[in-house]
C-alpha cells in the first residue's frame, strides 16, 4: 500500500510540475485521387514520439515541440508524406495511394515503429479488418489474418474461449500468448468490445517480444483501443447487426430401425436374446432424431455506439455496446451477453505534460451448458442416445430410454433443467502522465488496475422422468431426488505500476537513436468463496438461495474459499539504432522477477538482438524497376514463459483436507500434510527464437510479400517427470523438457484499382513443425487425453514426436474367417469379424507395447485468404480460412456402453466373409476389444471454411446530406457459410482442452453458420 501511495504522489508530483511552451498544429488530410477526407491517418512529429490520428473527417491536431517541426503523415495504403510546419498553425496534406504501407507506424512493445524499420516479426491487424467481419470475440479477429497465428475455437458455445498458438505449441503447459491491452497485461480479452479496438499487433519472434521478458515466450498480442483526436468535431457512430445462427451439419446416425437391427445383432453375438422392444425393427421406423431435439436456430445481436470529441488540448472517446448471442444448442440456456462501456481521454497540461485515462467497464452474463465431454454434454448425449426413445411422451413429459443408461440421459430434459450462470463485472482502468524532461527525453508513468468480480450460480432442481412415483425402470441419471444449489463469488484484482523513459534523437550524421528504459511492478490477488446446499424448499430457480432449505437444522450449508497472491517485477531497456537509411539495429534486455519462481531462481534475464537491412537503394535492386522496396530482417532472442506457473508451485504446501472419517456419527476429521515434493529451483520456461525474414514491395506496390523462417526452441520446459513411487509424494513440475517449433510463413497481398473498381487479394500461410526434444531424465512420455468411449488415454507426448500426438493401435483390416483369426495368436480372443490389431514388436501378444503413432493433431499448414472488392458504393469481401493435414480423434461415441446410437458407418459392418474390411462386427461382448484406441478413430481434420462473405452498400452522399447523416453503410454477411472437410463429426474446427489435448472430439459443440444484416452510421 505504501508503494501505491508513493506511486500516486509521484504522478501528482509530475502533474503539477513544469508547464512549458509547445505548439498545436491542426489540419485536414485528404486522398490525392479524389480529395475525400482520410480518417485514421497517423500524424507524427518527426524525431519524436508525438503522434495523433485523423478523425472521420480527416481532421487532426498534434502538439509539436518546435516551430519548424516536420510532420509525417502515414496511412495504410498511402505513401507517407513529410510536411514542414514552418511556423504555421494549420497544415493540410494530400496523400497518394501506395499499396505497400511501408511508412505506417505500428504499435510495438512500449512504443511505435515504422514498418520499414522493423527488424523483428510483427503481424498487424487494423481496425478495418476487425470491424469488417462481425466478430463475437476479439480473438476471432485474429483468425486467418496473420501468418503463423493459429486460432481455434474450444467450443461453439457462445462465450467460449478460443485457443491461440503463435508459431506452434511452444510449451507443455500454458501455450497461450500474453495479451497486453493499452499497456496492461490482461488475463483474457473477452471483456473487450471489438469495435473499441484501434489496432492489434502480434509480436511473433523473440526479439519483438523480448521486452515482455519472462512472459513473452508464447508471443504477445498488443491491443490498442481507440482514442479521440484533438480539435475534432463531435462525432457519433452507431453500428448494429442482427444475425441468425443455425447448425450447418448433422451427423448421419442410425435411425430406429437400423439401430434395432444392429442392437439385436450385437446382443446375439454376445449370446443374449434380442430385447423385446426391438424384436421387430422394421416397425420402429425413423424414430427420434436427437440432434434435431437439441439444435435450433438462435439469434444474435449487437449494438455499439461511440462518441469522439476533441478540443484544443484534450480528446475524448466514449464507447458503449451491447451484444447478445444465444446458443444453437439450448437457445437462451446457452446465452452470452456482454455490456461494455469505455472512456478514453487525453489532456494536455501545457506542452510538456500530457495525461490520459482509459476506463473500461464490462458486464458479462453467461448461461452455459455442459459441453465437449463424453459424460454429460448435451451434444454428446444427443449423439449417443438411442433413436427408439422419443424425447417427449405424448403428455409432454420428457421420456427416458430403456435402451441406455449410465451417463447417457435425455439431453432435451438436461437443457430444460440447466441452470448454470456466470456473471462477471470487470473494471479495467489506467491513468498515465507523460512529461518531456527534455525535448527528446520523455518520462511516462502509468498506474492501472484490473478488477474482476465473478459470480457463479448453479441450481440443480430435483426431477423424475419415471412413469409414476418410484418407477423402478428409470435409469439413475433420469431422476434426482434432492435439489441442490451452489453459489460462488470470485474476485481477481491486479494492479500494475509502470515507469518508462524514452530518449529519441536524430544524430547529426543522419543516424537516429531511440532508447526506452523502464520498470514495471505487478501484483495479483484473487479470492473466492463458495457455498453449497441441498434440499432447498423450492424447486424454482427464483427461490434458489442458500437460506431457503427444507432441512435447515439438519443440514447446514457447506462453504469453501481461499485466497492467493503473486507479485511480478521487471526492468527493461531497448536500444534502436538507425544507421543511415539502410540499417536498423535493435537490442533489448529485460530482467524479470516473480514470486512464483523458486527461491533459487527469482530473477531471469532475457536478451535479444535484431537487425534489418533495407536493400532498396542497393544498385542491383535500384536498377530493377519492379522492386519498390526490399528489406532483409534477422533476429535472435530469449523470452520466458511463466504464466503457466502457479502461485506456490515451487514449495510444498501443507494441505488441510487429507481427512478421515471417525466416530459412529462419521465425522470428517482434519488431516494435513504436504502433497507434492518442493522445487526451490522452479523457474520460467526459456523460449529461444531465431527469425529471418524478407519484406518486399513489387510492381508499384501492387504486390507485397512478407516471408519468415523461424526456429523456436523451448528449453527448461516445465514437465512433471514421474518420480519413483517410493518417494511417496507427488512430483512437482521441474524445468527439464524441451520442444522445438520451426517453420516458414508467407503473406502475400495484391491490390489494384481499375477505374472505379478497387480490389485486393491477400493470403497467408504457415508451415510449422512441432517436435518434443527432451522430457527430462528417463524421458518418460506423458500420456493425456482420456477418452472414455474407447477406454484409454489417446494423446502422447514423447521425445522426437509432436506434442500430444495420437497414440494407439494400428489396424490391418478385419478377420474375414475364424480360421484367419485363430491363426493370429497375438489376438487370442478374436474371431471372424474382429479387428486385426498389429503386433508391432512381433512378440506374439498385442498389448500396450504395440501402440504407435496413429495421428498428428498439428496441421501441416494453416492459411487464410482474403478478397476484397469495391465498385462505386458497393463493397464485397470474401474471407477463407483453413487448416491442412491435421488429424482429429473422433471420441464422441460411448462404445463402452454397448447400446449407444452409432454413425451410419456402422451399417457397413462386417456381417460375413468379404462384407467389410473396415468396420468390425458388432457385439455386446466385444472380446477382442475392437473399440480400443486405434487408427479407426483417427480422421483427417483438414478443412477450408468460408469464414465470412459480405456485401455492403454505402448510401450515396447526397442522400446522406439530406438526412444529415455523415455516412451510412448497410451490409449482409454470412459467417461459416460453407465448410469443406472430410471429417465426419459435427465440426472440424476442434480446439484444445489444456495444452496437451489437441483435436479430440468428445461430441464437440459446433460453431454455427450465421446470416447477418447490419448497418453502420456516422453522424
Amino acid at each position: 500500500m505504501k508503494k501505491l501511495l508513493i506511486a500516486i504522489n509521484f504522478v501528482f508530483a509530475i502533474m503539477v510540475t513544469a508547464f512549458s511552451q509547445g505548439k498545436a498544429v491542426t489540419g485536414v488530410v485528404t486522398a490525392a485521387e479524389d480529395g475525400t477526407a482520410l480518417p485514421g491517418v497517423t500524424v507524427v512529429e518527426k524525431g519524436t514520439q508525438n503522434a495523433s490520428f485523423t478523425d472521420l473527417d480527416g481532421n487532426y491536431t498534434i502538439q509539436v515541440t518546435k516551430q519548424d517541426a516536420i510532420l509525417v503523415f502515414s496511412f495504410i495504403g498511402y505513401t507517407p508524406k513529410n510536411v514542414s510546419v514552418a511556423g504555421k498553425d494549420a497544415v493540410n496534406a494530400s496523400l497518394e495511394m501506395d499499396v505497400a504501407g511501408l511508412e505506417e507506424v505500428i504499435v510495438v512493445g512500449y512504443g511505435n515503429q515504422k514498418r520499414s524499420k522493423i527488424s523483428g516479426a510483427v503481424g498487424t491487424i487494423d481496425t478495418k479488418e476487425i470491424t469488417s467481419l462481425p466478430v463475437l470475440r476479439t480473438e476471432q479477429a485474429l483468425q486467418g489474418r496473420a501468418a503463423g497465428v493459429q486460432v481455434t475455437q474450444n467450443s461453439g458455445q457462445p462465450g467460449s474461449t478460443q485457443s491461440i498458438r503463435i508459431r506452434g505449441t511452444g510449451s507443455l503447459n500454458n501455450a497461450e500468448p500474453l495479451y497486453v491491452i493499452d499497456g496492461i497485461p490482461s488475463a483474457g480479452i473477452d471483456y473487450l468490445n471489438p469495435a473499441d479496438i484501434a489496432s492489434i499487433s502480434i509480436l511473433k519472434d523473440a526479439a519483438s517480444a523480448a521486452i515482455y521478458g519472462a512472459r513473452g515466450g508464447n508471443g504477445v498480442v498488443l491491443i490498442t483501443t481507440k482514442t479521440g483526436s484533438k480539435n475534432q468535431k463531435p462525432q457519433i457512430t452507431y453500428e448494429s447487426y442482427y444475425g441468425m445462427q443455425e447448425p450447418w451439419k448433422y451427423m448421419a446416425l442410425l435411425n430406429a430401425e437400423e439401430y434395432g437391427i444392429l442392437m439385436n445383432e450385437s446382443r446375439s453375438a454376445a449370446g443374449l436374446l434380442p430385447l423385446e422392444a426391438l424384436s421387430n425393427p422394421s416397425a420402429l421406423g425413423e424414430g427420434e432424431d436427437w440432434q434435431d431435439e437439441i439444435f435450433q436456430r438462435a439469434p444474435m445481436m449487437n449494438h455499439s455506439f461511440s462518441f469522439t470529441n476533441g478540443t484544443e488540448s484534450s480528446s475524448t472517446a466514449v464507447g458503449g455496446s451491447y451484444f447478445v448471442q444465444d446458443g444453437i444448442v439450448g437457445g437462451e440456456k446457452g446465452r452470452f451477453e456482454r455490456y461494455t462501456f469505455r472512456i478514453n481521454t487525453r489532456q494536455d497540461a501545457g506542452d510538456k505534460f500530457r495525461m490520459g485515462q482509459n476506463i473500461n467497464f464490462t458486464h458479462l452474463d453467461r448461461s452455459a451448458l455442459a459441453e465437449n465431454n463424453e459424460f454429460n454434454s448435451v451434444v454428446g448425449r444427443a449423439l449417443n442416445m438411442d433413436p427408439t426413445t422419443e424425447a417427449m411422451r405424448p403428455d409432454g413429459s420428457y421420456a427416458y430410454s430403456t435402451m441406455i443408461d449410465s451417463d447417457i440421459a435425455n439431453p432435451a430434459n438436461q437443457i430444460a433443467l440447466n441452470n448454470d450462470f456466470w456473471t462477471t463485472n470487470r473494471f479495467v482502468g489506467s491513468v498515465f502522465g507523460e512529461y518531456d524532461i527534455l525535448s527528446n527525453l520523455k518520462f511516462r508513468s502509468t498506474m492501472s488496475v484490473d478488477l474482476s468480480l465473478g459470480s457463479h450460480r448453479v441450481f440443480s432442481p430435483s426431477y423424475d422422468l419415471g412413469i409414476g412415483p418410484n418407477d423402478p425402470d428409470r435409469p439413475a441419471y433420469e431422476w434426482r431426488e434432492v435439489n441442490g444449489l451452489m453459489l460462488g463469488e470470485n474476485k481477481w484484482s491486479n494492479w500494475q505500476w509502470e515507469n518508462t523513459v524514452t530518449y529519441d534523437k536524430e544524430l547529426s550524421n543522419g543516424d537516429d537513436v531511440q532508447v526506452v528504459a523502464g520498470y514495471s511492478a505487478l501484483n495479483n490477488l484473487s479470492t473466492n468463496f463458495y457455498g453449497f446446499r441441498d434440499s432447498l424448499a423450492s424447486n424454482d430457480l427464483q427461490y434458489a438461495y442458500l437460506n431457503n432449505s427444507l432441512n435447515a437444522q439438519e443440514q447446514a450449508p457447506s462453504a469453501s474459499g481461499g485466497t492467493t497472491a503473486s507479485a511480478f517485477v521487471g526492468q527493461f531497456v531497448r536500444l534502436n539504432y538507425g544507421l543511415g537509411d539502410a540499417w536498423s539495429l535493435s537490442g533489448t534486455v529485460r530482467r524479470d522477477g516473480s514470486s512464483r519462481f523458486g527461491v533459487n531462481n527469482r530473477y531471469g534475464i532475457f536478451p535479444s538482438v535484431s537487425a534489418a537491412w533495407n536493400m532498396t537503394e542497393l544498385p542491383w535492386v535500384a536498377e530493377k524497376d519492379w522492386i519498390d522496396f526490399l528489406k532483409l530482417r534477422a533476429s535472435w532472442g530469449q523470452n520466458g514463459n511463466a504464466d503457466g506457473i502457479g502461485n506456490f508451485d515451487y514449495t510444498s504446501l501443507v494441505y488441510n483436507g487429507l481427512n478421515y472419517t471417525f466416530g459412529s456419527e462419521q465425522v470428517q476429521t482434519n488431516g494435513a500434510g504436504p502433497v507434492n515434493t518442493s522445487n526451490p529451483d522452479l523457474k520460467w520456461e526459456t523460449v529461444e527464437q531465431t527469425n529471418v525474414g524478407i519484406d518486399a514491395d513489387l510492381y508499384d506496390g501492387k504486390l507485397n510479400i512478407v516471408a519468415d523462417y523461424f526456429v523456436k526452441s523451448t528449453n527448461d520446459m516445465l514437465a512433471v517427470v514421474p518420480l519413483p513411487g517410493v518417494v511417496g509424494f507427488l512430483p512437482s513440475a521441474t524445468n527439464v523438457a524441451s520442444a522445438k517449433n520451426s517453420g516458414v510463413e508467407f503473406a502475400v497481398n495484391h491490390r489494384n484499382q481499375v477505374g472505379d473498381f478497387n480490389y485486393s487479394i491477400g493470403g497467408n500461410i504457415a508451415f510449422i513443425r512441432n517436435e518434443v526434444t527432451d522430457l527430462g531424465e528417463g524421458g518418460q512420455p506423458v500420456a493425456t487425453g482420456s477418452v472414455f468411449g474407447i477406454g484409454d488415454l489417446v494423446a502422447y507426448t514423447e521425445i522426437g514426436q509432436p506434442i500430444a500426438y495420437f497414440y494407439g493401435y494400428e489396424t490391418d483390416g478385419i478377420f474375414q474367417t475364424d480360421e484367419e483369426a485363430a491363426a493370429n495368436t497375438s489376438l487370442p480372443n478374436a474371431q471372424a469379424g474382429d479387428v486385426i490389431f498389429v503386433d508391432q514388436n512381433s512378440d506374439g501378444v498385442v498389448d500396450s507395447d504395440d501402440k504407435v503413432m496413429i495421428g498428428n493433431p498439428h496441421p501441416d499448414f494453416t492459411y487464410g485468404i482474403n478478397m476484397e472488392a469495391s465498385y462505386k458504393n458497393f463493397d464485397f469481401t470474401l474471407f477463407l480460412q483453413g487448416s491442412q493435414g491435421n488429424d482429429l480423434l473422433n471420441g464422441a461415441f460411448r462404445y463402452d456402453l454397448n447400446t449407444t446410437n452409432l454413425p451410419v458407418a456402422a451399417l457397413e459392418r462386417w456381417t460375413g466373409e468379404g462384407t467389410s474390411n473396415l468396420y468390425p462386427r458388432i457385439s455386446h461382448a466385444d472380446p477382442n476389444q475392437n473399440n480400443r484406441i486405434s487408427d479407426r478413430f483417427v480422421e483427417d481434420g483438414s478443412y477450408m471454411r468460408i469464414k465470412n462473405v459480405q456485401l455492403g452498400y454505402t448510401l450515396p452522399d447526397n442522400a446522406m446530406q439530406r438526412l444529415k447523416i455523415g455516412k451510412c453503410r448497410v451490409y449482409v454477411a454470412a459467417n461459416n457459410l460453407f465448410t469443406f472437410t472430410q471429417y465426419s463429426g459435427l465440426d472440424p474446427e476442434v480446439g484444445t482442452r489444456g495444452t496437451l489435448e489437441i483435436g479430440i472430439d468428445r461430441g464437440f459443440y459446433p460453431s454455427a453458420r450465421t446470416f447477418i444484416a447490419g448497418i453502420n452510421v456516422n453522424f
Partner: protein
Amino acid sequence: MNQKTTLIIGFLAVALVACKQEFLEVQPLVGSTEANFFQNADDAESATIACYNNLQQEVTNIQGSAQLAPHFRWYFGDICSDDSHKGGSGDGDEPELFLFENFSGNSSSKLVLAEWQVAYRGIAYCNLALDRIPGIEMDQQDKDRFLGEASFIRAYWYFNMVTMFGDVPLILGNLAPSEYQQARSSSNEVWAQIEADLTFARENLPRRSELSIAETGRATWGAASALLAKAHAYQEEWQPCNDICLDVMTSGEYYLDPDYANIFTESGENGPGSIWEIQYMNASGGNWGNQLEGSFTNVFQRARGQFGGYGFNIPEQNFVDEFENGDPRLGATVFQVGDQMGDRGVFSLEATGMPHLYYSKKFFINASDEAPFGDPNPNGFSNDRVIRYADVILFHAESAYHLGNEGLARNSVNIIRSRARGGNQALLVSLGTDVTGPDLLDAIYHERRVELGMEGHRFFDLVRTGRGSVELADWGFVSGTHEVFPIPEVEITLSGGLITQNNGY
C-alpha cells in the same frame, strides 16, 4: 539539465530501488508450507490423520498424470481368485483386470502401478509423522499414541506390498532427491519391519474399549495384534500367531455379532467383531470428485441396468457351490436371480441387462440410504471390513492345527459355524472329532472361504497356503510366478534398474 529534471530522475531511481525490496516475497495466505508445519499437538494429530487419509484411496490418479486407476482390495483378493470374476460391461471394461484375472496381466498395467504408488504414498505420510512428531513438545501419551497409529498404518501398507509383490523397497524415512532410487529389500526384512512396527503399535495403541465413540475407527491394540497375528500366519510362524490370536480372543474386547448378515449393513459397521475397518461415509461422487470420503465399491459392485451400478466382482458358481446346504451366509454374500435387491428392485437378467446369475451383496446399500446430494451415482458409505474377529478366530484354528492342537482348532471353527447357523441347529453341524488331519485343515480353509467370502482375502489365502496352482489352475495360475504380481515396469525404469522384476513377468 535543470535542477527539476535532476530531481525527477533522482526520484525515479529511488522509486525503482525502493520497490525492489522484498516485493516478491509473497507468502501463502491460506495454509502453511512444509517448513513451518509440525509445531504443536494439533499439527501432530493432523499429520497422523493424514496417514489414515490414504487408506481410503480406491480410485487414484496415477502419479503426475490425469489417468485414474482403481485398485480395490477385492480386485486382487476376490477377482483374481476362484471366488469371483470381473464383470463390468464386458471384457473390455477394465481390460487390465481381465488380464490379471486370467493371470496374463503384465507389468505395464496401471492397476499394479496404482497399488504400488498408493501404498508408498501412505507409507510416506507415516514416515513423515514418525520422523517429525517425536520432535514436537506435547503430551507424551498422545505422542506415543500418534506414533503407534502411524506405525500400525505403515505396517498395514507393507503387509499389502509384501503380499502383492514379494520383495519391495523398504522405505522408513522421507527421501532426499539423491535417495529416490531404491532397490528391493528381501521379504524377510519387510516382514521383520512389519513385526517391529506392529509390536510398537501394540504397546502404544489404546484398547478398543478405551476409545471414545467419536474415536471409532482409529487404530487399536486389537487391530495391531490381529495384523501381527496375520503377519505371523503368512510366514507360517504358528506359535506367535497362536499366542496373539489367543491374546485377542481372551481380551474381552471383541465378540461375534450373533447375526452374520447384520455385519454388512450400516448398523453393523464398527460392530462387536470389527477389528480393523477402513471408514467411509456418504459422499457425492458421481462426478468422480471427492474420492476420499465415500467408497466407490458400492457402485462398482452393484448390478448394472436399473440398479445403476457397474456390475463388477461377479461371484463364480464355484464359490456359490462352496456353501453348505442352507448356509445363511450365502444369502448374506450373494444375490441370486429373483432376490430383492433392497429398495432397488428385483434381480432379473432383464433388469440388469447382463447375463450374470449372481451379484456380490456385502457392499450393497439401499438407494434410500445413499448420499442425499442429488447425485445419481454417489459414492457409498460402506466401510471396508479389513479384519474381522472371525478372521482372528480362524487364524487361531489354523495355527492350533499346525501346532498339533486339533481340538482347539475344531473348537474355533465351531465358534464360527455356530454363529453362522443363527440358532438353526439343523444347519452347519459342528465339526466332530472325526474331522482330523488334512480333513480338518480343509475344513478350516472351507470355513475361511465362506465366512470371509468376497471380502478380499481368498487369493492371498490360496497363495499363502500353496493352493494357487491347484485351485486357480483353470485361470492359468503358474507356480513360481503368480504368487505375486508384476512389479510396475515404470518403477523399474525410474529406479534406474535397481528394482528387478518378479520371476516370470
